[in-house]
């Protein structure tokens, strides 16, 4: 056993670019600890790498009787009001939910070594681990990178995980397998210069067909539905959907875009989105507001214009041609489920958790994960099961489950037994029992009520009644968010809830707003309607009353939404009304604390959310690179590697110059010749880079070093270069400030 680091051990296993980014993040952490990087810039950087804040990370917590200060050590913050030592959440991007057995094993290891041995599947097919210390995140990223998983742009104002139907490739209703295209979009957009300057996040989703729910494209910022026209593969593209407090349905940008136009069109959308957002400067918004404001026709026109001006990129076609379909080779030949004795519980499980594939003799098996959670041990057992019976491949789902594909029907009994032995063989997958929930007050800073506590309670009560439940009730979906931000996708459920609070008897009582009649089908085609708030502790009775009313008054095979629409809002409200009242504290104290909690309820623990990312300019983000190179240069100097130190210092000046150039010319390459020549004409020759005292002195440092590299490098030369580079980076900051304030002044003069 040696003292090697993960960085050394995994060096050859990581993509070199990814490895370098992670090293950069490592040095940004070091810079922040030294107080050499601003807290907002650092927060933006970390969010972009999937490192989120978590509840109580401002060091305050209500313990049920009083507000307490959590005595974290006094080191720099990791963002505004976010203490360094406070545990946080890491979101791990899983494009279209595809995960291999090996990847799952590494995720399991990381959950044990950096978190609490729980892997959590999110409503956008990601994994999350909680209670992670920031200093463990670089190694976490390295271990994931070694199996080709990234956390980059899992949070922050960027392109988030690309989601897609978990049945892609095996589904009976799909037009074609969307997974390779989802992967292509992910590869193309990840770290793309055009997605770095969004005012808000951008969430893409792919669906293989129009009418099912799996892709949920209608609620996404960008949605892609597989279509074939005249024998050509392509996509219907929709934009501007989204949930949140004001949910929007996406509008059609194009009825058919051939596959080779998919990436450039998305690049054009990204540019329009980034630019329009920026025009309004501090008033940026999700794309849904933009499209709603300017209209889809105008948006379309702008995208078409933008598309024409894009510099050509070979990857537009190379990434989407000759794509291998992702459906894995099955491990066993397709077969029939043999008749005979079945283990206890098999029939119920088969009924809800097994779905026939397009390929004869195979099935998709759903793992009904409670609240999206599985343990590290369960993940390892699942990896074994996947290897043995389903050709290695799994998918996560937006219902916070996982699926195994290509399970031969002949193996279903064995798979059921293995899953059951591992504690992941629960029946009732994708039924009313399989409640979805966002993190809520468990870990989210914005949580108002305990969505997970409620979900756990409902799951337990509904599971107990599942065997005797009418089929129509069993088929319903319940989804819960801890607040109006809708991370739990409550708008899409038959019965949805989001957390809020009410004052009763001089105290705060946790409540949930009831949202009824959302449409899961048609790719999340319709959103539910708000009916009023009920106290948290009454929700199980409310669910029962609603389902009873549905069973009693349902006409024919009427859907729940149909029932809600026909009954009308007023009568629906009558059903929940008896549950709205809260008895005084002395009579019913249980109403005054939340599920899975015993503390008297308060909303005092609410913190500042990090959903949108910090607002840092494009320059701010870019120049961080320069600063971390400068930091690495100093390390190299200390270690006596003078050539490396000198070179890093030079490269840090190039990065800072590029940050400035990109304010005006987004497509500048990273080639030093290009950067220096653009810098010279745009900032140096016209003296914009000059300051009152030093004039062009600092700019000249870069020009001179670029013109002639030193023949031999000793400590003196390296130290001098480092000093020069620091002055240059300072000057770049000052230059950006002057430009920024000039534009604000110009704006003020116009107004």
């Amino acid at each position: 056993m040696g003292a090697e680091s993960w960085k050394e051990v995994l060096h050859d296993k990581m993509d070199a670019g990814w490895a370098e980014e992670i090293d950069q993040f490592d040095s940004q952490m070091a810079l922040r600890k030294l107080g050499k990087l601003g807290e907002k810039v650092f927060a933006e950087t970390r969010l972009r790498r999937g490192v989120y804040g978590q509840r109580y990370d401002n060091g305050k917590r209500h313990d049920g009787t009083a507000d307490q200060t959590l005595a974290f050590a006094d080191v720099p913050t990791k963002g505004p009001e976010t203490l360094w030592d406070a545990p946080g959440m890491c979101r791990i991007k899983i494009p279209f939910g595809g995960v291999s057995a090996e990847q799952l094993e590494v995720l399991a290891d990381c959950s044990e070594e950096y978190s609490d041995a729980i892997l959590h599947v999110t409503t956008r097919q990601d994994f999350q681990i909680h209670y992670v210390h920031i200093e463990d995140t670089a190694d976490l990223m390295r271990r994931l990178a070694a199996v080709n998983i990234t956390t980059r742009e899992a949070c922050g104002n960027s392109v988030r995980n690309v989601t897609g139907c978990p049945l892609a490739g095996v589904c009976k209703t799909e037009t074609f397998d969307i997974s390779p295209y989802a992967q292509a979009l992910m590869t193309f957009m990840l770290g793309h210069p055009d997605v770095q300057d969004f005012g808000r996040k951008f969430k893409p989703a792919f669906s293989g067909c129009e009418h099912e729910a799996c892709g949920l494209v209608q609620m996404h910022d960008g949605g892609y539905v597989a279509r074939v026209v005249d024998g050509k593969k392509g996509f219907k593209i929709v934009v501007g959907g989204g949930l949140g407090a004001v949910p929007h349905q996406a509008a059609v940008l194009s009825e058919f875009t051939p596959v080779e136009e998919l990436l450039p069109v998305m690049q054009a959308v990204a540019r329009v989105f980034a630019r329009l957002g920026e025009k309004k400067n501090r008033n940026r918004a999700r794309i849904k507001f933009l499209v709603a404001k300017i209209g889809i026709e105008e948006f379309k026109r702008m995208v078409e214009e933008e598309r024409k001006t894009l510099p050509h990129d070979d990857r537009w076609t190379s990434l989407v041609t000759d794509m291998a379909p992702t459906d894995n080779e099955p491990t066993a030949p397709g077969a029939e489920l043999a008749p005979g004795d079945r283990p206890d519980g098999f029939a119920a499980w088969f009924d809800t958790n097994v779905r026939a594939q397009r390929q004869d003799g195979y099935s998709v098996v759903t793992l009904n994960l409670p609240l999206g959670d599985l343990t590290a041990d369960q993940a390892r057992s699942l990896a074994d099961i996947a290897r043995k019976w389903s050709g290695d491949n799994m998918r996560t789902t937006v219902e916070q489950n996982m699926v195994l594909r290509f399970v031969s029907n002949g193996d279903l009994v064995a798979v059921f037994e293995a899953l059951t032995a591992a504690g992941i063989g629960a029946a009732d997958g994708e039924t009313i029992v399989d409640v979805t929930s966002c993190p809520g007050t468990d870990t989210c800073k914005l949580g108002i009520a305990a969505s997970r506590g409620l979900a756990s309670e409902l799951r337990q009560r509904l599971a107990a009644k599942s065997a005797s439940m009418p089929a129509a009730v069993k088929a319903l979906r319940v989804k819960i968010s801890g607040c109006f931000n809708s991370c739990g996708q409550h708008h899409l459920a038959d019965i949805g809830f989001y957390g809020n609070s009410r004052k009763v008897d001089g105290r705060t009582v946790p409540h949930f707003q009831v949202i009824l009649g959302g449409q899961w089908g048609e790719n999340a085609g319709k959103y539910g309607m708000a009916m009023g708030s009920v106290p948290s502790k009454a929700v199980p009775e409310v669910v029962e009353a609603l389902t009873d009313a549905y069973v009693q008054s349902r006409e024919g095979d009427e859907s729940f939404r149909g029932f809600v629409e026909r009954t009308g809002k007023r009568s629906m409200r009558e059903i929940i009304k008896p549950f709205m009242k809260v008895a005084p504290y002395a009579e019913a104290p249980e109403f005054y604390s939340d599920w899975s909690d015993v503390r008297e309820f308060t909303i005092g623990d609410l913190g500042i959310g990090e959903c949108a990312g910090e607002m840092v300019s494009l320059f701010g983000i870019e120049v961080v690179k320069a600063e971390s190179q400068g930091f690495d240069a100093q390390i190299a100097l200390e270690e006596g590697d003078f050539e490396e130190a000198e070179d890093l210092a030079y490269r840090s000046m190039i990065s800072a110059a590029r940050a400035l150039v990109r304010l005006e010319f987004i497509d500048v390459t990273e080639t030093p010749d290009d950067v220096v020549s653009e810098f010279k004409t745009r900032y140096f020759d016209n003296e914009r880079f000059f300051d009152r005292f030093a004039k062009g002195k600092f700019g000249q440092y870069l020009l001179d070093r670029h013109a002639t590299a030193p023949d031999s490098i000793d400590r003196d030369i390296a130290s001098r270069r480092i000093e020069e580079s620091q002055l240059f980076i300072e000057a770049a900051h000052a230059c950006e400030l002057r430009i920024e304030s000039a534009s604000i002044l110009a704006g003020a003069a116009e107004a």
Partner: protein
Amino acid sequence: MIPKRISVKLFAADPEAEVDLHKYIRVFHEFIREKKVEGLLIDVADYSHVPEGPGVVLIGHDVDYSIDLNGGRAGLMALAKRIEGGNLADLFDDVVRKCLLAVKAVQEDGSTGMSFSTARLRVQLVDRLAAPNSDEGYASVQPEFEALAGRVFGDGATVERVEGDEPRRVLGAELCANKSDDLDTLLARLER
């Protein structure tokens, strides 16, 4: 070799009996409020919905305490999380002590009805880089486990490797006493 994390679990007297995890939510919130166990305590995480999961966890900055159901055997586990150097014997003693003190606090609370066996401790090194679960890995810490067993349980204690056939799991051992002493006796031995 110093691992980044060490866990120590003391099993329930009847480890396979059903545990009412919800009772621990109240107990752990009170531990935070009253600072009844060591460490910077932050919050309570409820995993009662997960079969054989971490149960209910009292999340801390430097140490977590949980009513852990892993492997279908309930017990109280202390997990030291922010270890930065030191000497393995001292670190072991410290985590064992924290675990035993937490068990003591649970028993003093009395509301959960759970009793513990003081004859067996599971100790794991949760760090696949520094402490891989290989035969050499185990051989190099076996003497440390044996010494720890002696310090906690006195003469005649034995050590059994756990998960030796599963290299993906973390390295660990169970330390077994040849007689059953009470908590205070074990704690007193560690004080020496």
